């Protein structure tokens, strides 16, 4: 199968305080259409930078980055980007936030309200449509930020540690919901995290990055059966072995 994203020898340097900083070095990574791929690595290894390059908001780079066979040279509005903070716009109500992408794309008011309402209902946010973000809990804001990305039906969803700031229970619930959405739509998801359990629970492939400058250290297949139960993932056959296998390599990259 032709990979939807194909990175070959991608290197990224940027300037900080007059110095050249090497963020990514020689990253080669094919991402298959419809797959759930997780990138894991120590903090500062350039995982987020990689997502920004794919979204076309951190250009230029060296090497080759093909998206559906074409080079990325500007903002890539075929992707959806879910940031670490929910980043719902505080001046818009929940439903206005969810509709925003369609408004920008010129979809008529009644139509976009219809689509937004359907997504709000599937995420159990019904009744909170006219609430402003400050009136929503962290978990609700996160749901909102996921569906405002889903609404324009992007081919790929890039998620940059989206569940990082949430408490442990809300995290599990949202991981579960994310898997259900992914199952139903078969979108390609490229997910960045620093949590190994989360990485294994969600993905088909776990890509382990080295410390800065980040590069692919190893790619692990996750053979656990689907649909998965994220709440009981520890008891899943094969989980522990895989966890230890990845961890033994991961811990070498972590310097405190």
């Amino acid at each position, binding site marked *: 199968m032709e990979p939807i994203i194909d990175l070959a020898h991608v290197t990224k340097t940027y300037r900080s305080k007059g110095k050249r900083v090497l963020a990514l070095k020689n990253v080669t990574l094919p991402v298959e259409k419809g797959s759930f791929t997780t990138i894991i690595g120590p903090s500062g290894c350039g995982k987020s930078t990689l997502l*920004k390059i794919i*979204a*076309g*908001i951190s250009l230029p780079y060296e090497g080759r980055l093909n998206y559906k066979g074409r080079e990325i040279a500007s*903002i*890539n*509005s075929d*992707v*959806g*980007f879910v*940031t670490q*903070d929910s*980043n719902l*716009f*505080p*001046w*818009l*109500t929940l439903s206005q936030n969810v509709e*925003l*992408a369609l*408004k*920008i*794309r010129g979809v008529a008011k009644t139509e976009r309200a219809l689509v937004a309402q359907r997504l709000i209902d599937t995420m*159990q946010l019904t009744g*909170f449509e006219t*609430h*402003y*973000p*400050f*009136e*929503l*809990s*962290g*978990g*609700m804001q996160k*749901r909102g930020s996921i569906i405002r990305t889903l609404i*324009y039906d992007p081919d790929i969803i890039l998620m940059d540690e989206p569940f990082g700031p949430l408490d442990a*229970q*809300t995290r599990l*619930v949202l991981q*579960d*919901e994310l898997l259900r959405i992914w199952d139903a739509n078969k979108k390609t998801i490229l997910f960045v995290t620093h949590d190994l359990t989360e990485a294994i629970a969600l993905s088909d492939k776990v890509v382990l990055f080295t410390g800065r400058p980040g590069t692919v250290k190893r790619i692990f297949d996750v053979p656990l059966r689907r649909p998965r139960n994220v709440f009981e993932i520890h008891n899943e056959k094969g989980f522990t072995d895989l966890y230890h296998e990845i961890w033994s390599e991961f811990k070498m990259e972590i310097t405190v």
Partner: protein
Amino acid sequence: MKDRTATSSASTGLADKNPAESPQRTFALASFRGLQVLLPGLCTLLLWELAAWQWPSVARLVSQPIEIGRGIVDVVTTGIIWQHFDATIKEMAAGYVIGAVTGVALGFLCGRIKWLGDILNPYITLFNGIPKVALAPVFVIWFGIGLMSKIAIIITMVFFVVFINTFAGLRSVNEDYVAIVRIMGASGWQVVREVFLPATLPFIMVGLRAGIPFSVIGAVVGEFIASTKGLGFFINYNQGTYDTNGIFVGVTILALLVVVLDGLLSLVEKRLLKWRPEVEAKNVGA
């Protein structure tokens, strides 16, 4: 699979709203708070009045509330205040609108176009350092003793406070917001409309509210220097005749004018910025 925290924290956690707020109760609370605010002012007026009765020298220096009130009624009913009020309001309106519009516009340009901001900013800081009041005599020479010289002074005063706030607002816009709408496919103008304008609005409002007293100061200073009408002229005229009561009549009218204008603007602000959590503590004294 419902988020457990959803319903409980729907109303912002710590600073929780009072759940049992009936309309009557809300009204009672509002009147109570209104009274709380008015009380110190009323006490001051009362003490002032009593002191003026007790010591006539006090009355000569600072007049007394009842006399000031009578004076205001007097100038309003005889109509002699209107030409002054009219001139000052016109100066303020013209100067404020021009200063605010150019302040917002240039603040936007300098805030978003980096090279332009880098070039213009040092100059704006420099000119802002000049006390604008010191320029007033020059403006009178340039624009004469009519409304124009006062409008010019007000423009320079209002422009800077609005510009500086707008500029600060733009420089503080969360870049993630910009990236998010760009990825959604927003054009340059859509980024301005969907992100920069709403994100900067709270800052612009701060500048606009701060600009109101400046526009009064500008008008009065200009009228002090050279004019034939205006509330500043009225005050200056009464000073010339040692009429303290007349001075306080003018000052009180100016103060009321600022309070009314600021009140109107804060209503607009409340409406425009209703998406912000209330900052003031909700249940103080309740």
